[in-house]
């Protein structure tokens, strides 16, 4: 038994070491989370690693003493119990005080990071995110450009029960969408997250953002991606939202500021005709709900009469 436990512990350690060396472990046999693409996500990553190592060290100490006792005080080896050892105030004070100290050490950076993530001031761009069963709608506030993002066709065919299509043959199986959310790098972007029917949760691990999309309420989150980190990053809905909860991925397409501006202009031009009649309203396809709309439909489950 001791062998197995310590073996596990070792493989855990080895696992952690491995990921430290190769932090881009989105591949098979991945063991750890990634550092992500923003200052906040790196903060959170190091917070995670710090707590992890604290736990590892504690585990080594505590399990070490346990294993020592298991080996040293075996009856089969003639150990005689010391029945007078029932109490030791000094030891008890120590093993209450040391954990308190450790917790304080962990609480400080955790609090700092939490306060940082909460500070959504001075954002340069605002995007409304709306969860639907089972897709995501995005609206670039101000420009009126909207994007509706659903699971891509290939994944969708392959994921049908008994489709016979090998998921390994589908690139980015279940993590690809028809229209990605295009965002600028090096810009503080605010997300206003809500939902139309049930609770969803918008999660992109590379941003370390997971925020619930709650019908009738708007939640706020923000990110600022490093200028260098352009490219595609993937995530998923992270709150059980019904039958196809597993099939509403998120893809963000991070572009340089200039590329993003250009993209937004083209989209605006493309979507303008649809908007001509009612400039403020969103086009029917994307429809992050207007207020009136929401009031009418936000009750997800109509009461039975």
């Amino acid at each position: 038994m001791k062998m197995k436990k310590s073996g596990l512990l070792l493989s855990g350690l080895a696992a952690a070491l491995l990921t430290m060396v190769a932090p881009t472990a989105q591949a098979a046999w991945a063991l750890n989370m990634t550092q992500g693409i923003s200052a906040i996500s790196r903060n959170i990553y190091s917070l995670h690693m710090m707590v992890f190592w604290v736990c590892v060290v504690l585990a080594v100490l505590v399990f070490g003493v346990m294993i020592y006792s298991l080996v040293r005080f075996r009856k089969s080896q003639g150990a005689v119990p010391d029945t007078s050892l029932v109490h030791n105030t000094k030891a008890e004070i120590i093993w209450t005080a040391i954990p308190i100290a450790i917790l304080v050490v962990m609480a400080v950076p955790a609090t700092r990071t939490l306060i940082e993530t909460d500070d959504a001031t001075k954002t340069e761009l605002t995007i409304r995110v709306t969860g639907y069963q089972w897709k995501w709608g995005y609206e670039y506030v101000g420009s009126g450009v909207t994007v509706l993002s659903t699971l891509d066709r290939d994944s969708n065919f392959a994921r049908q029960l008994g489709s016979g299509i090998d998921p390994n043959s589908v690139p980015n199986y279940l993590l690809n969408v028809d229209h990605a959310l295009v965002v600028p790098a090096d810009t503080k972007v605010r997300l206003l997250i809500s939902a139309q029917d049930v609770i969803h949760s918008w999660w992109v691990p590379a941003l370390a953002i997971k925020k619930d999309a709650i019908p009738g309420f708007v939640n706020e989150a923000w990110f600022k991606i490093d200028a260098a980190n352009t490219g595609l990053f993937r995530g998923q809905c992270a709150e059980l939202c019904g039958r196809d909860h597993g099939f509403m991925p998120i893809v963000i397409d991070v572009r340089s500021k200039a590329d993003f501006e250009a993209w937004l202009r083209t989209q605006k031009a493309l979507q303008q005709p649809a908007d001509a009649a009612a400039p403020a309203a969103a086009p029917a396809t994307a429809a992050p709900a207007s207020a009136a709309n929401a009031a009418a439909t936000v009750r997800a489950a109509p009461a039975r009469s």
Partner: protein
Amino acid sequence: MAYTETVDAHDHHDHPPAGIWRWLSTTNHKDIGTLYLVFSGIMFFVGGAMAMVIRLELFKPGMQFVDPAFFNSMTTVHGLAMIFGAVMPAWVGLANWMIPLQVGAPDMALPRMNNFSFWLLPFAFTLLLIGFFVPGGAPAGGWTLYPPLVLQGGDSFPMAIFAIHLMGASSIMGAINVIVTIMNMRAPGITLLRMPLFVWTWLITAYLLILVMPVLAGSVTMLLTDHFFGTSFFSASGGGDPVMFQHIFWFFGHPEVYILILPAFGIVSEVIPTFSRKPLFGYEAMVYATASIAFLSFIVWAHHMFTVGMPLAGELFFMLSTMLIAIPTGVKVFNWTATMWRGSLSFEPPMLFALAFLFLFTIGGFSGLMLAIAPADFQYQDTYFVVAHFHYVLVPGAIFSIMAGVYYWLPKWTGHLYSMALGKWHFWLSAIFVNVLFFPQHFLGLAGMPRRIPDYATQFADWNMVSSLGGFGFGLSQLLFPILIWKCVRGGEKAPAQVWEGAHGLEWEVPSPAPYHTWQDPPSEAQIAHGAEH
């Protein structure tokens, strides 16, 4: 007085009535304990079978066997069946069997109500499980029943609600019985601080139950009226809030997880001293630690809700209060370790399971601590990291200690010793496979696999396959347990009154098997002293 006659008249028939009526009408704590334990075993297999469906579908990427909606039902009912059907009834069963024996009482304080609290359970689970056969299928919104999703449920929705009402009523009555038995039925001489720790932890658990089960009942009642009677507790258009449900639910839900684990602490605190042949280290500290955990459990609930968009102050408060729980829990872990220190250890099945508990529960506690760090929880929340966390505290935590308890007291119940070899096989297979099953889920969660999904991206394939293999192995190993119990009930070497060399307590003062009626006359001072010693 007339009543002494009545009592005496019954005293003589030490044998219960025969047939099914015995079990339907029984007021005997041992019968009821047995009923609870058998029921719990059945539900463990029912819930486990659902877990096997989950692991089968997740064996490799792609949808192979079930519809996504059915998969969600499997997850939901697996969670409900395991928590309310397997673990909680097992604890009440052990309480029924052991608390009167351990405090020297003739029975539970309110025997008729005791029967009622058991018999509600099979009806509750019938109601829940026939949900699979009604239009819309079984509940599929997760065991946490979050609205608005849960309100989209089909005809099984009100069945699940009423089933939960029945389970709640059962738990409340069970808890009242435990409290009253402990407070009113202790034999003279058994003061509060002379009670075994199993009794102590159960007492505190019972307080938790009484304080939170009614809140769960209230919250699901609001779901019912939101669905059928047009109230808008959980709908913003009427001024309510879906998140309000989560607050009320977790006000129940977090203490609930300690309801599942505190009696486990009690069992481990009995077993480790016995097989270390040394009294428990820091008895009083253990009692106070248990009480602190129970107290803290009421002020940490929103750590399940770090991503719902609480105001900063709320996030901070719940993060810090949650971290505090590590302190009293640490005291427990250290005291158990100190109990083994300079002891004389032997490794019979109860001890093996208790030791596995010690190591693996601590691992689960550490991952709990990681989850408590709110910013980090943004990454962990609703992933398999959480699934790994709670299975570590629930399976090698709660389930293993239930098994430790059964292995510890089984000879007392049946009067026979069981096969040590079979018990050890059961242990080693369980201990190995449970890690193969749940350890890789940490990796999956960190790599980004959400929970409650029937299919996943291909980079998660490898660890899922490992986990599934571990799951099948673990599931098959559990078949040894009923086999061993069955054999032990049927026969075997006669067990002495004191089964284990280092055991303490009044339960070892009565013969094995424990007679149908025990402690009709309270234990004598001498017996109490002897029980505390030997």
